[in-house]
C-alpha cells in the first residue's frame, strides 16, 4: 500500500527535484549576465528526468552497492554537475559571456510555471488518495 502511494507520487516528485535544480542553474545564468567569460548553462530536462526515474547513473549519479538480494537499489537522484550542458550562444559578445538575458528570463519563468504545475499535480494526487481512503 505504502509502496503504491510512493510510486504514484514518485514521478512528480522527481520532476519537481529537477525543476528545482534547473531553476538554480537558470538563476546562476541571470545573476552572471555581466560576468566576463561566464558561460551560460542549462540541463536537459528530459534526459535528467529519465535518469532520475530509472535511478541509473545515466544522469551522472552514483549507484548504491548491493551486496545482498534483500538490499534496496536506492535512487541516487541528481548530483551536482549531473547533465549540466553549456548553451550555444546565439550572439557572441566581446567579453566572452554567453548569457542571453531574454532567453534566460523566459526559461526562468517557464521553469517556475512547470514547478508550480508539478506542485499542483502532487496536491491533486494527495487529495485523490485522501478521497479514496475516506470514501
Amino acid at each position, binding site marked *: 500500500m505504502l509502496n503504491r502511494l510512493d510510486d504514484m507520487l514518485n514521478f512528480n516528485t522527481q520532476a519537481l527535484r529537477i525543476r*528545482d*535544480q534547473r*531553476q*538554480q*542553474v537558470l*538563476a*546562476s545564468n*541571470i*545573476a*552572471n*549576465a*555581466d*560576468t*566576463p567569460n*561566464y558561460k551560460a*548553462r542549462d540541463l536537459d530536462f528530459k534526459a535528467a528526468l529519465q535518469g532520475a526515474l530509472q535511478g541509473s547513473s545515466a544522469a551522472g549519479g552514483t549507484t548504491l552497492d548491493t551486496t545482498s538480494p534483500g538490499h534496496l537499489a536506492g535512487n541516487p537522484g541528481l548530483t*551536482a*554537475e549531473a547533465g*549540466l550542458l553549456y548553451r550555444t550562444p546565439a550572439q557572441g559578445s566581446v567579453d566572452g559571456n554567453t548569457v542571453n*538575458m531574454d532567453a534566460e*528570463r523566459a526559461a*526562468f*519563468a517557464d521553469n*517556475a510555471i512547470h*514547478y*508550480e504545475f508539478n*506542485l499542483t499535480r*502532487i*496536491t491533486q494526487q*494527495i487529495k485523490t488518495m485522501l478521497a479514496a481512503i475516506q470514501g
Partner: protein
Amino acid sequence: MSLFNIFNVAGSAMNAQSQRLNTVASNLANADSATSANGEPYKAKQVVFAATPVDESGATGVNVAAVVEDQSPMKMVYDPKNPLADGKGYVTMPNVNVVEEMVNMISASRSYQSNADMMNTTKTLLLKTLSLGQ
C-alpha cells in the same frame, strides 16, 4: 531544499551590481575633479565581476573580484588661467567617460531589477511548496 540557494545567488548578484552602481556614482561625481588628496587628478574606477560557486550543487553567484583603475588616457583641457595648468597651459582632467558611465548605470540597474524579480519568483515558489497538499 536547493531553491533557497537562489536567494544566495540573486543576493550576491545584487550586491555586486550595487557596488558597480557605487563606482559609477563616484566616477560621475568626480568627472571634473582635477586634483585630489594626493595631488593627482581622479582616475575612473571599474569593478571586475567574477563567478563564484555558492555551494557544491552547481549554483553560481557573483562577487566583485577587484576594483581597477581605468587605464585610458587622461583628458587634457586647455585652460591657462587654471592654477593646475602645466607649462603649455593644459590641465589634466579625469579620464571619466560620462556617456559610458551612464550606460553602465542603466545596465547595472536593469540587472539589479532582474535579480530582484528572480527573488520574488523564488519566494512565490517556496511559499507554494510550503502549502503543498492543502
